[in-house]
Protein backbone atom coordinates (compact mmCIF):
# COMPACT_ATOMS: atom_id res chain seq x y z
CA UNK A 1 0.00 0.00 0.00
CA UNK A 2 1.38 3.39 -1.02
CA UNK A 3 0.26 6.84 -0.02
CA UNK A 4 1.03 9.88 -2.18
CA UNK A 5 0.01 13.47 -1.54
CA UNK A 6 -0.15 16.49 -3.81
CA UNK A 7 -1.92 19.85 -3.77
CA UNK A 8 -4.18 21.22 -6.49
CA UNK A 9 -5.20 24.79 -5.64
CA UNK A 10 -6.80 24.66 -2.19
CA UNK A 11 -7.44 20.95 -2.39
CA UNK A 12 -5.18 18.25 -1.01
CA UNK A 13 -5.26 15.09 -3.08
CA UNK A 14 -4.35 11.82 -1.43
CA UNK A 15 -3.66 8.96 -3.80
CA UNK A 16 -3.75 5.45 -2.39
CA UNK A 17 -2.71 2.27 -4.13
CA UNK A 18 -2.88 -1.43 -3.27
CA UNK A 19 -4.70 -3.05 -0.39
CA UNK A 20 -6.33 -0.61 2.02
CA UNK A 21 -6.95 -2.49 5.28
CA UNK A 22 -6.40 -2.46 9.04
CA UNK A 23 -2.63 -2.38 8.55
CA UNK A 24 -2.83 0.78 6.44
CA UNK A 25 -5.54 2.61 8.39
CA UNK A 26 -3.12 3.90 11.09
CA UNK A 27 -0.94 5.53 8.41
CA UNK A 28 -3.98 7.40 7.13
CA UNK A 29 -4.87 8.56 10.64
CA UNK A 30 -1.31 9.80 11.07
CA UNK A 31 -1.59 11.61 7.74
CA UNK A 32 -4.75 13.39 8.94
CA UNK A 33 -2.76 14.67 11.90
CA UNK A 34 -0.41 16.54 9.56
CA UNK A 35 -3.16 17.87 7.32
CA UNK A 36 -3.38 21.66 7.03
CA UNK A 37 -6.51 21.91 4.86
CA UNK A 38 -10.08 20.72 5.23
CA UNK A 39 -10.62 20.18 1.50
CA UNK A 40 -9.46 16.69 0.63
CA UNK A 41 -9.91 14.34 -2.30
CA UNK A 42 -8.94 10.71 -1.81
CA UNK A 43 -8.19 9.05 -5.12
CA UNK A 44 -8.87 5.32 -4.79
CA UNK A 45 -8.17 4.39 -8.42
CA UNK A 46 -5.26 2.20 -7.35
CA UNK A 47 -7.03 0.50 -4.43
CA UNK A 48 -8.27 -3.00 -5.15
CA UNK A 49 -9.41 -3.96 -1.65
CA UNK A 50 -10.86 -2.07 1.29
CA UNK A 51 -11.97 -3.40 4.67
CA UNK A 52 -14.05 -2.02 7.53
CA UNK A 53 -11.04 -0.51 9.31
CA UNK A 54 -10.09 1.41 6.20
CA UNK A 55 -13.67 2.55 5.74
CA UNK A 56 -13.65 3.74 9.35
CA UNK A 57 -10.45 5.69 8.70
CA UNK A 58 -12.11 7.41 5.74
CA UNK A 59 -15.27 8.24 7.70
CA UNK A 60 -13.09 9.65 10.47
CA UNK A 61 -11.36 11.88 7.95
CA UNK A 62 -14.67 12.98 6.45
CA UNK A 63 -15.98 13.92 9.87
CA UNK A 64 -12.81 15.80 10.71
CA UNK A 65 -12.94 17.80 7.47
CA UNK A 66 -16.65 18.61 7.87
CA UNK A 67 -16.04 19.81 11.43
CA UNK A 68 -13.62 22.30 9.89
CA UNK A 69 -16.23 23.37 7.31
CA UNK A 70 -14.57 21.38 4.55
CA UNK A 71 -15.11 17.88 3.21
CA UNK A 72 -13.34 14.68 2.25
CA UNK A 73 -14.49 13.44 -1.14
CA UNK A 74 -13.68 10.22 -2.96
CA UNK A 75 -13.04 9.44 -6.59
CA UNK A 76 -12.29 6.66 -9.07
CA UNK A 77 -13.50 3.68 -7.05
CA UNK A 78 -12.77 0.24 -8.50
CA UNK A 79 -15.72 -2.14 -8.64
CA UNK A 80 -14.77 -4.25 -5.54
CA UNK A 81 -14.35 -1.07 -3.52
CA UNK A 82 -17.62 0.37 -4.86
CA UNK A 83 -19.39 -2.81 -3.70
CA UNK A 84 -18.19 -2.32 -0.12
CA UNK A 85 -19.42 1.26 -0.11
CA UNK A 86 -22.82 0.14 -1.40
CA UNK A 87 -23.04 -2.77 1.05
CA UNK A 88 -22.44 -0.45 3.98
CA UNK A 89 -24.41 2.42 2.36
CA UNK A 90 -21.41 4.65 2.93
CA UNK A 91 -21.86 5.67 -0.71
CA UNK A 92 -24.71 7.82 0.70
CA UNK A 93 -22.43 9.44 3.27
CA UNK A 94 -19.52 10.43 1.03
CA UNK A 95 -19.53 12.51 -2.10
CA UNK A 96 -18.08 10.13 -4.69
CA UNK A 97 -16.95 11.16 -8.18
CA UNK A 98 -15.90 9.15 -11.23
CA UNK A 99 -12.71 11.15 -11.68
CA UNK A 100 -10.24 13.21 -9.67
CA UNK A 101 -10.86 16.25 -11.87
CA UNK A 102 -14.58 16.21 -11.08
CA UNK A 103 -13.93 15.72 -7.37
CA UNK A 104 -11.55 18.70 -7.24
CA UNK A 105 -13.90 20.84 -9.29
CA UNK A 106 -16.77 20.11 -6.90
CA UNK A 107 -15.06 22.19 -4.21
CA UNK A 108 -15.35 25.32 -6.31
CA UNK A 109 -18.99 24.84 -7.39
Amino acid at each position, binding site marked *: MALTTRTVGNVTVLELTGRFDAHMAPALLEWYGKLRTAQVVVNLAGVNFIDSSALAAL*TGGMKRCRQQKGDLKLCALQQPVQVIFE*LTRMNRAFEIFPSETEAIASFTH
Partner: protein
Amino acid sequence: MRIAIVTPYPPSAGSLNEYAFHFIRFLRQKPEVKEIFVLTDELPGDQAYPADTDWQPGTATLRIVPCWRFGALDNALRIARTARSLAPDIVLFNIQFASFGRSKPSAALGLLAPMMVRAAGLATIVLLHNIMETVDLKSAGFGGNPLVEGVIRAFGTVSTRILLRADLLAVTIPRYVEILEKKYGVSNVLLAPHGAFDEAPPPTFDAPPGPLQIMTFGKFGTYKKIEPLVVAFRLLQKVRQDLELVIAGTDSPNAPGYLEGVRQANADLQGLRFTGYVAEEDVPRIFQDASVVVFPYTSTTGSSGVLHQAGNYGRAVVLPQLGDLAELIAEEGYTGEFFTPDDPQSLADAMTRLLDDPERRRAMGTQNYLAACGLPMAEVVEWYLIHAANILAIRAARGQTSGKLPTFGHR
Protein backbone atom coordinates in the same frame (compact mmCIF):
# COMPACT_ATOMS: atom_id res chain seq x y z
CA MET B 1 -28.97 14.41 18.47
CA ARG B 2 -31.44 12.77 20.86
CA ILE B 3 -31.53 9.01 20.40
CA ALA B 4 -33.86 6.33 21.75
CA ILE B 5 -32.70 2.71 21.76
CA VAL B 6 -35.16 -0.14 22.14
CA THR B 7 -33.22 -2.99 23.69
CA PRO B 8 -32.75 -5.17 26.74
CA TYR B 9 -30.19 -3.48 28.96
CA PRO B 10 -28.33 -4.78 32.03
CA PRO B 11 -29.32 -5.82 34.63
CA SER B 12 -32.09 -7.18 32.42
CA ALA B 13 -30.96 -10.62 31.31
CA GLY B 14 -32.65 -10.28 27.93
CA SER B 15 -30.78 -11.37 24.85
CA LEU B 16 -28.43 -8.69 23.40
CA ASN B 17 -28.27 -6.80 26.72
CA GLU B 18 -24.46 -6.84 26.68
CA TYR B 19 -24.28 -5.60 23.11
CA ALA B 20 -26.56 -2.75 24.13
CA PHE B 21 -24.42 -1.95 27.15
CA HIS B 22 -21.27 -1.54 25.07
CA PHE B 23 -23.02 0.19 22.19
CA ILE B 24 -24.51 2.79 24.52
CA ARG B 25 -21.23 3.15 26.44
CA PHE B 26 -19.57 4.37 23.24
CA LEU B 27 -22.59 6.18 21.85
CA ARG B 28 -22.84 8.53 24.82
CA GLN B 29 -19.24 9.63 24.27
CA LYS B 30 -19.99 11.01 20.80
CA PRO B 31 -20.13 14.79 20.90
CA GLU B 32 -23.13 15.07 18.59
CA VAL B 33 -25.23 12.89 20.92
CA LYS B 34 -26.89 14.94 23.66
CA GLU B 35 -29.40 12.57 25.17
CA ILE B 36 -30.04 8.81 25.07
CA PHE B 37 -33.28 7.11 26.09
CA VAL B 38 -33.03 3.38 26.67
CA LEU B 39 -36.49 1.93 26.05
CA THR B 40 -35.91 -1.32 27.83
CA ASP B 41 -37.86 -4.17 29.39
CA GLU B 42 -39.31 -4.01 32.87
CA LEU B 43 -37.38 -5.97 35.46
CA PRO B 44 -39.16 -8.76 37.33
CA GLY B 45 -40.79 -8.06 40.68
CA ASP B 46 -39.99 -4.76 42.32
CA GLN B 47 -36.53 -4.47 40.83
CA ALA B 48 -35.54 -1.11 39.41
CA TYR B 49 -32.76 -0.08 37.07
CA PRO B 50 -29.87 1.53 38.94
CA ALA B 51 -29.30 5.24 38.62
CA ASP B 52 -26.83 6.37 35.96
CA THR B 53 -23.54 6.91 37.77
CA ASP B 54 -21.30 6.89 34.71
CA TRP B 55 -22.17 10.33 33.43
CA GLN B 56 -19.18 12.56 32.77
CA PRO B 57 -19.18 16.18 31.65
CA GLY B 58 -19.31 16.29 27.86
CA THR B 59 -21.08 12.95 27.51
CA ALA B 60 -24.72 12.36 26.71
CA THR B 61 -27.22 11.96 29.50
CA LEU B 62 -28.74 8.50 29.80
CA ARG B 63 -32.33 7.90 30.78
CA ILE B 64 -33.58 4.36 31.34
CA VAL B 65 -37.25 4.03 30.41
CA PRO B 66 -38.67 0.57 31.14
CA CYS B 67 -41.70 0.41 28.87
CA TRP B 68 -42.20 -3.15 27.72
CA ARG B 69 -42.25 -6.61 29.24
CA PHE B 70 -40.78 -9.80 27.79
CA GLY B 71 -43.67 -12.00 26.68
CA ALA B 72 -46.39 -9.33 26.76
CA LEU B 73 -48.64 -8.85 23.76
CA ASP B 74 -48.86 -5.05 23.83
CA ASN B 75 -45.14 -4.24 23.65
CA ALA B 76 -45.22 -2.63 20.22
CA LEU B 77 -48.00 -0.29 21.23
CA ARG B 78 -46.29 0.69 24.49
CA ILE B 79 -42.96 1.24 22.77
CA ALA B 80 -44.55 3.39 20.06
CA ARG B 81 -46.44 5.46 22.63
CA THR B 82 -43.33 5.96 24.74
CA ALA B 83 -41.17 6.86 21.76
CA ARG B 84 -43.74 9.36 20.54
CA SER B 85 -43.95 11.01 23.96
CA LEU B 86 -40.17 11.32 24.20
CA ALA B 87 -39.87 12.56 20.60
CA PRO B 88 -36.23 11.63 19.97
CA ASP B 89 -34.59 12.44 16.65
CA ILE B 90 -34.21 8.75 15.86
CA VAL B 91 -35.13 5.38 17.36
CA LEU B 92 -32.70 2.46 17.13
CA PHE B 93 -33.81 -1.13 17.71
CA ASN B 94 -31.24 -3.66 18.92
CA ILE B 95 -33.19 -6.87 18.41
CA GLN B 96 -33.47 -10.41 17.14
CA PHE B 97 -36.57 -12.44 16.36
CA ALA B 98 -37.24 -13.53 19.95
CA SER B 99 -36.44 -10.24 21.65
CA PHE B 100 -39.98 -9.52 22.75
CA GLY B 101 -41.25 -12.91 23.81
CA ARG B 102 -40.91 -16.66 24.01
CA SER B 103 -44.25 -17.44 22.39
CA LYS B 104 -44.86 -16.84 18.70
CA PRO B 105 -47.65 -14.26 19.30
CA SER B 106 -45.62 -12.15 21.73
CA ALA B 107 -42.47 -12.38 19.58
CA ALA B 108 -44.34 -11.51 16.38
CA LEU B 109 -46.41 -8.69 17.86
CA GLY B 110 -43.32 -7.14 19.44
CA LEU B 111 -41.65 -7.00 16.05
CA LEU B 112 -44.37 -4.59 14.92
CA ALA B 113 -42.71 -1.94 17.09
CA PRO B 114 -40.33 -0.45 14.47
CA MET B 115 -43.17 -0.09 11.97
CA MET B 116 -45.43 1.53 14.56
CA VAL B 117 -42.72 3.89 15.72
CA ARG B 118 -42.08 4.94 12.15
CA ALA B 119 -45.80 5.35 11.60
CA ALA B 120 -45.73 7.74 14.56
CA GLY B 121 -43.45 9.93 12.48
CA LEU B 122 -40.09 8.97 13.97
CA ALA B 123 -37.00 7.88 12.07
CA THR B 124 -36.03 4.27 12.75
CA ILE B 125 -33.01 2.03 12.31
CA VAL B 126 -33.24 -1.67 13.16
CA LEU B 127 -30.12 -3.65 13.98
CA LEU B 128 -31.27 -7.23 13.39
CA HIS B 129 -28.80 -9.75 14.79
CA ASN B 130 -30.16 -12.77 12.96
CA ILE B 131 -32.38 -13.45 9.98
CA MET B 132 -34.92 -16.24 9.67
CA GLU B 133 -33.69 -17.22 6.23
CA THR B 134 -30.50 -18.71 7.63
CA VAL B 135 -31.88 -20.35 10.78
CA ASP B 136 -31.57 -24.12 10.68
CA LEU B 137 -35.00 -25.06 12.03
CA LYS B 138 -34.11 -28.75 12.22
CA SER B 139 -31.26 -28.02 14.60
CA ALA B 140 -33.49 -25.61 16.49
CA GLY B 141 -35.92 -28.46 17.12
CA PHE B 142 -38.64 -27.61 14.59
CA GLY B 143 -37.60 -29.93 11.80
CA GLY B 144 -39.85 -32.87 12.63
CA ASN B 145 -43.06 -31.37 11.35
CA PRO B 146 -43.12 -29.84 7.86
CA LEU B 147 -46.32 -27.96 8.71
CA VAL B 148 -44.78 -26.34 11.79
CA GLU B 149 -41.63 -25.56 9.82
CA GLY B 150 -43.73 -23.95 7.09
CA VAL B 151 -45.66 -21.87 9.59
CA ILE B 152 -42.45 -20.66 11.23
CA ARG B 153 -40.92 -19.80 7.86
CA ALA B 154 -44.06 -17.87 6.92
CA PHE B 155 -43.96 -16.06 10.27
CA GLY B 156 -40.34 -15.20 9.58
CA THR B 157 -41.09 -13.84 6.14
CA VAL B 158 -43.99 -11.68 7.34
CA SER B 159 -42.01 -10.44 10.35
CA THR B 160 -39.03 -9.59 8.18
CA ARG B 161 -41.24 -7.66 5.77
CA ILE B 162 -42.58 -5.68 8.73
CA LEU B 163 -39.10 -4.98 10.07
CA LEU B 164 -38.06 -3.78 6.63
CA ARG B 165 -40.57 -0.95 6.99
CA ALA B 166 -37.95 0.78 9.14
CA ASP B 167 -35.96 3.52 7.48
CA LEU B 168 -32.90 1.27 7.58
CA LEU B 169 -32.28 -2.30 8.61
CA ALA B 170 -28.72 -3.19 9.56
CA VAL B 171 -27.26 -6.70 9.68
CA THR B 172 -23.79 -7.81 10.65
CA ILE B 173 -22.92 -10.29 7.89
CA PRO B 174 -22.56 -9.38 4.19
CA ARG B 175 -24.46 -12.45 3.03
CA TYR B 176 -27.50 -11.32 5.05
CA VAL B 177 -27.64 -8.10 3.02
CA GLU B 178 -27.63 -10.07 -0.22
CA ILE B 179 -30.30 -12.51 1.00
CA LEU B 180 -32.68 -9.78 2.17
CA GLU B 181 -32.22 -7.60 -0.91
CA LYS B 182 -32.81 -10.54 -3.22
CA LYS B 183 -35.78 -12.09 -1.42
CA TYR B 184 -37.63 -8.90 -0.46
CA GLY B 185 -36.54 -6.59 -3.27
CA VAL B 186 -35.55 -3.82 -0.87
CA SER B 187 -32.73 -1.31 -0.84
CA ASN B 188 -32.79 -0.16 2.78
CA VAL B 189 -30.60 -2.97 4.14
CA LEU B 190 -26.99 -2.32 5.03
CA LEU B 191 -23.98 -4.01 6.51
CA ALA B 192 -22.85 -2.71 9.89
CA PRO B 193 -19.96 -4.62 11.46
CA HIS B 194 -20.60 -6.14 14.86
CA GLY B 195 -17.69 -4.29 16.44
CA ALA B 196 -15.31 -5.13 19.26
CA PHE B 197 -16.57 -4.32 22.74
CA ASP B 198 -13.31 -3.36 24.34
CA GLU B 199 -10.11 -1.88 23.13
CA ALA B 200 -8.32 -4.25 25.45
CA PRO B 201 -4.56 -4.18 25.87
CA PRO B 202 -2.71 -7.13 24.36
CA PRO B 203 -3.78 -10.09 26.46
CA THR B 204 -1.78 -12.79 28.17
CA PHE B 205 -2.05 -15.83 25.99
CA ASP B 206 -0.72 -18.31 28.53
CA ALA B 207 -3.03 -20.30 30.77
CA PRO B 208 -3.04 -19.29 34.45
CA PRO B 209 -1.79 -21.74 37.09
CA GLY B 210 -4.13 -24.52 38.13
CA PRO B 211 -6.43 -26.76 36.11
CA LEU B 212 -6.93 -25.87 32.47
CA GLN B 213 -10.32 -24.25 32.15
CA ILE B 214 -12.77 -25.02 29.38
CA MET B 215 -15.29 -22.22 29.42
CA THR B 216 -18.57 -21.48 27.70
CA PHE B 217 -20.29 -18.14 28.04
CA GLY B 218 -23.79 -16.94 27.32
CA LYS B 219 -27.47 -17.55 27.89
CA PHE B 220 -28.24 -21.21 27.60
CA GLY B 221 -31.11 -23.53 26.85
CA THR B 222 -32.37 -22.63 23.40
CA TYR B 223 -29.77 -22.90 20.65
CA LYS B 224 -26.91 -22.95 23.16
CA LYS B 225 -27.07 -26.45 24.67
CA ILE B 226 -24.40 -27.62 27.06
CA GLU B 227 -25.29 -31.33 27.35
CA PRO B 228 -22.90 -32.40 24.56
CA LEU B 229 -20.19 -30.26 26.15
CA VAL B 230 -20.69 -31.97 29.51
CA VAL B 231 -20.51 -35.41 27.87
CA ALA B 232 -17.38 -34.36 26.00
CA PHE B 233 -15.88 -33.15 29.28
CA ARG B 234 -16.54 -36.60 30.80
CA LEU B 235 -14.70 -38.15 27.85
CA LEU B 236 -11.71 -35.85 28.41
CA GLN B 237 -11.62 -36.66 32.10
CA LYS B 238 -10.98 -40.28 31.28
CA VAL B 239 -7.54 -39.34 29.97
CA ARG B 240 -6.59 -36.27 31.99
CA GLN B 241 -7.54 -34.88 35.40
CA ASP B 242 -6.21 -31.32 35.14
CA LEU B 243 -9.38 -29.87 33.69
CA GLU B 244 -12.28 -27.73 34.80
CA LEU B 245 -15.48 -27.00 32.88
CA VAL B 246 -16.92 -23.55 33.59
CA ILE B 247 -20.46 -22.71 32.52
CA ALA B 248 -20.54 -18.92 32.67
CA GLY B 249 -23.91 -17.25 32.37
CA THR B 250 -27.57 -17.84 32.89
CA ASP B 251 -30.62 -19.47 31.38
CA SER B 252 -31.96 -17.95 28.21
CA PRO B 253 -35.18 -16.05 28.98
CA ASN B 254 -36.77 -18.64 26.69
CA ALA B 255 -35.55 -21.59 28.78
CA PRO B 256 -35.99 -20.90 32.48
CA GLY B 257 -34.59 -23.65 34.74
CA TYR B 258 -32.44 -25.17 32.01
CA LEU B 259 -29.05 -24.87 33.72
CA GLU B 260 -30.39 -26.10 37.06
CA GLY B 261 -31.67 -29.20 35.28
CA VAL B 262 -28.23 -29.88 33.78
CA ARG B 263 -26.54 -29.23 37.10
CA GLN B 264 -28.77 -31.72 38.92
CA ALA B 265 -28.32 -34.34 36.21
CA ASN B 266 -24.53 -34.04 36.57
CA ALA B 267 -24.20 -33.61 40.32
CA ASP B 268 -21.61 -36.44 40.34
CA LEU B 269 -19.26 -34.71 37.91
CA GLN B 270 -16.06 -33.35 39.43
CA GLY B 271 -14.67 -30.16 37.93
CA LEU B 272 -17.99 -28.83 36.63
CA ARG B 273 -18.72 -25.28 37.81
CA PHE B 274 -21.65 -22.95 37.17
CA THR B 275 -20.90 -19.26 37.71
CA GLY B 276 -24.43 -17.91 37.32
CA TYR B 277 -24.81 -14.34 36.09
CA VAL B 278 -21.44 -12.79 35.30
CA ALA B 279 -21.23 -9.13 36.27
CA GLU B 280 -19.59 -6.82 33.75
CA GLU B 281 -16.51 -6.30 35.92
CA ASP B 282 -15.96 -10.07 36.15
CA VAL B 283 -16.06 -10.72 32.40
CA PRO B 284 -12.31 -10.10 31.80
CA ARG B 285 -11.31 -12.57 34.50
CA ILE B 286 -13.72 -15.23 33.21
CA PHE B 287 -12.17 -15.07 29.76
CA GLN B 288 -8.57 -14.66 30.91
CA ASP B 289 -8.84 -17.75 33.11
CA ALA B 290 -10.06 -19.89 30.22
CA SER B 291 -7.68 -21.95 28.12
CA VAL B 292 -10.39 -22.74 25.61
CA VAL B 293 -13.74 -21.05 24.94
CA VAL B 294 -16.38 -23.41 23.55
CA PHE B 295 -19.47 -22.44 21.55
CA PRO B 296 -21.95 -25.30 22.06
CA TYR B 297 -24.44 -23.95 19.54
CA THR B 298 -26.95 -26.24 17.85
CA SER B 299 -28.28 -23.71 15.39
CA THR B 300 -27.00 -20.89 13.28
CA THR B 301 -27.15 -17.40 14.70
CA GLY B 302 -25.99 -13.95 13.80
CA SER B 303 -22.56 -12.62 14.51
CA SER B 304 -21.51 -13.79 17.95
CA GLY B 305 -20.73 -11.25 20.63
CA VAL B 306 -19.06 -13.97 22.65
CA LEU B 307 -16.66 -14.68 19.79
CA HIS B 308 -15.67 -11.02 19.75
CA GLN B 309 -15.13 -11.12 23.50
CA ALA B 310 -13.03 -14.28 23.19
CA GLY B 311 -11.01 -12.44 20.56
CA ASN B 312 -10.60 -9.41 22.78
CA TYR B 313 -9.02 -11.58 25.43
CA GLY B 314 -6.91 -13.59 22.99
CA ARG B 315 -8.59 -16.91 23.61
CA ALA B 316 -8.57 -20.07 21.50
CA VAL B 317 -12.08 -21.14 20.52
CA VAL B 318 -13.94 -24.31 19.60
CA LEU B 319 -16.89 -23.81 17.29
CA PRO B 320 -19.60 -25.94 15.69
CA GLN B 321 -19.54 -26.62 11.97
CA LEU B 322 -22.55 -24.43 11.25
CA GLY B 323 -22.80 -22.20 8.19
CA ASP B 324 -23.04 -18.82 9.89
CA LEU B 325 -20.15 -19.20 12.28
CA ALA B 326 -17.83 -20.63 9.66
CA GLU B 327 -18.63 -17.68 7.41
CA LEU B 328 -18.20 -15.23 10.22
CA ILE B 329 -14.75 -16.56 10.94
CA ALA B 330 -13.74 -16.43 7.31
CA GLU B 331 -15.00 -12.87 6.84
CA GLU B 332 -13.82 -11.36 10.09
CA GLY B 333 -10.43 -12.99 10.38
CA TYR B 334 -11.07 -15.33 13.31
CA THR B 335 -9.92 -18.90 13.55
CA GLY B 336 -10.97 -21.88 15.64
CA GLU B 337 -11.16 -25.61 16.00
CA PHE B 338 -14.41 -27.07 14.69
CA PHE B 339 -16.64 -29.91 15.84
CA THR B 340 -19.77 -31.62 14.57
CA PRO B 341 -22.82 -30.30 16.47
CA ASP B 342 -24.41 -32.80 18.87
CA ASP B 343 -21.37 -35.08 18.61
CA PRO B 344 -19.59 -35.15 22.01
CA GLN B 345 -16.67 -37.21 20.67
CA SER B 346 -16.07 -34.70 17.89
CA LEU B 347 -16.22 -31.89 20.46
CA ALA B 348 -13.83 -33.73 22.79
CA ASP B 349 -11.40 -34.25 19.92
CA ALA B 350 -11.51 -30.57 18.97
CA MET B 351 -10.85 -29.49 22.57
CA THR B 352 -8.03 -32.02 22.90
CA ARG B 353 -6.26 -30.58 19.87
CA LEU B 354 -6.05 -27.26 21.70
CA LEU B 355 -5.55 -28.46 25.26
CA ASP B 356 -2.59 -30.61 24.18
CA ASP B 357 -0.93 -27.85 22.18
CA PRO B 358 -0.15 -24.59 24.06
CA GLU B 359 1.54 -23.14 20.97
CA ARG B 360 -1.57 -23.73 18.88
CA ARG B 361 -3.67 -22.04 21.58
CA ARG B 362 -1.30 -19.07 21.63
CA ALA B 363 -1.31 -18.71 17.84
CA MET B 364 -5.09 -18.97 17.67
CA GLY B 365 -5.52 -16.52 20.53
CA THR B 366 -3.21 -14.04 18.83
CA GLN B 367 -5.09 -14.26 15.53
CA ASN B 368 -8.44 -13.87 17.27
CA TYR B 369 -7.15 -10.88 19.21
CA LEU B 370 -6.05 -9.19 15.99
CA ALA B 371 -9.44 -9.96 14.43
CA ALA B 372 -11.27 -8.50 17.41
CA CYS B 373 -9.18 -5.34 17.15
CA GLY B 374 -10.45 -4.92 13.59
CA LEU B 375 -13.20 -2.41 14.14
CA PRO B 376 -13.80 -1.03 17.63
CA MET B 377 -17.36 -0.43 18.77
CA ALA B 378 -16.60 3.29 18.81
CA GLU B 379 -16.26 3.18 15.02
CA VAL B 380 -19.40 1.08 14.57
CA VAL B 381 -21.35 3.63 16.59
CA GLU B 382 -19.92 6.33 14.34
CA TRP B 383 -21.36 4.55 11.32
CA TYR B 384 -24.83 4.47 12.87
CA LEU B 385 -24.63 8.19 13.56
CA ILE B 386 -23.69 8.83 9.94
CA HIS B 387 -26.69 6.81 8.75
CA ALA B 388 -28.96 8.51 11.28
CA ALA B 389 -27.82 11.93 10.10
CA ASN B 390 -28.50 10.97 6.49
CA ILE B 391 -32.01 9.74 7.30
CA LEU B 392 -32.80 12.92 9.18
CA ALA B 393 -31.41 15.08 6.39
CA ILE B 394 -33.58 13.26 3.84
CA ARG B 395 -36.65 13.56 6.07
CA ALA B 396 -36.02 17.24 6.60
CA ALA B 397 -35.69 17.77 2.87
CA ARG B 398 -39.03 16.01 2.38
CA GLY B 399 -40.63 18.06 5.12
CA GLN B 400 -41.20 15.00 7.28
CA THR B 401 -39.75 16.70 10.35
CA SER B 402 -39.83 20.17 11.77
CA GLY B 403 -36.78 20.78 9.67
CA LYS B 404 -34.42 20.68 12.61
CA LEU B 405 -31.36 18.95 11.22
CA PRO B 406 -28.92 17.05 13.40
CA THR B 407 -25.61 18.78 13.78
CA PHE B 408 -23.54 15.85 12.62
CA GLY B 409 -19.90 16.63 12.97
CA HIS B 410 -20.57 19.73 15.00
CA ARG B 411 -21.08 20.04 18.68
